[in-house]
């Protein structure tokens, strides 16, 4: 199934794009999408323990199962204010 990955701030810089269409196995978790991505862009790997994730613009846990057409976002540690 197809999902869209969105990346922000330094994660976007590392991947060189803010949006990536991905083909993933049905029922794939956010964590599975992240692992594949980190395999492709090794500089993402150190963020494994500090990222947050969101599905369709709501915060979600890494074990959340994705559905066809979902937008999954990966967020580095935040620095607003």
């Amino acid at each position, binding site marked *: 199934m197809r999902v869209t990955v969105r990346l922000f701030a330094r994660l976007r810089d590392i991947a060189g794009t803010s949006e990536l269409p991905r083909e993933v196995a049905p029922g794939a978790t956010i964590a599975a999408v992240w692992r594949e991505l980190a395999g492709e862009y090794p500089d993402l790997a150190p963020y494994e323990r500090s990222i947050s994730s969101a599905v369709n613009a709501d915060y979600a846990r890494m074990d959340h199962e994705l559905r066809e057409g979902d937008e999954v976002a990966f967020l580095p540690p*935040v620095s*607003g*204010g």
Partner: protein
Amino acid sequence: VTTPLLAIGPSRVDIDALVSAVGNAGGADGAVVTFLGLVRNHNQGRRVLYLEYEAFELLGVKTFERIADEVVRRWPDTRIALHHRTGRLDIGEASVAIVAASAHRSNAYAACRYTIERVKQIAPVWKREFFDGGDVWIEGATADPDDEAARTQAERVACA
């Protein structure tokens, strides 16, 4: 033009418009506390030239709604407005504006402080610092709105 209570975007923050938007609860309010966060010309020994803010705007507004709900649950006679700016900001410009209104000043002060602490913990916003000699993404807290320990810490700071 009506000013929304909660917003993220490139437009300049207007604290007076935000105070008007919050109103005075039909006369029931006795205190309004405002906070402006400014772009500072120094950070960790570096001379800062300017900042660029990036946000996940849709998630950001939802996060602001969550913070506003937390405020009203903790301080029932209190409400907030919150604007965060994105894009390039020069030294001295305001990146964030908060207005907290309440029947009594103690709650207005606490709610205002709580709100900025929560913004720093969970708002999906990032600043990139351009300084003399380079630039760097600033990375602070791992955003987890359900982290009750972090929320409690924000409340403790607010009520200190």
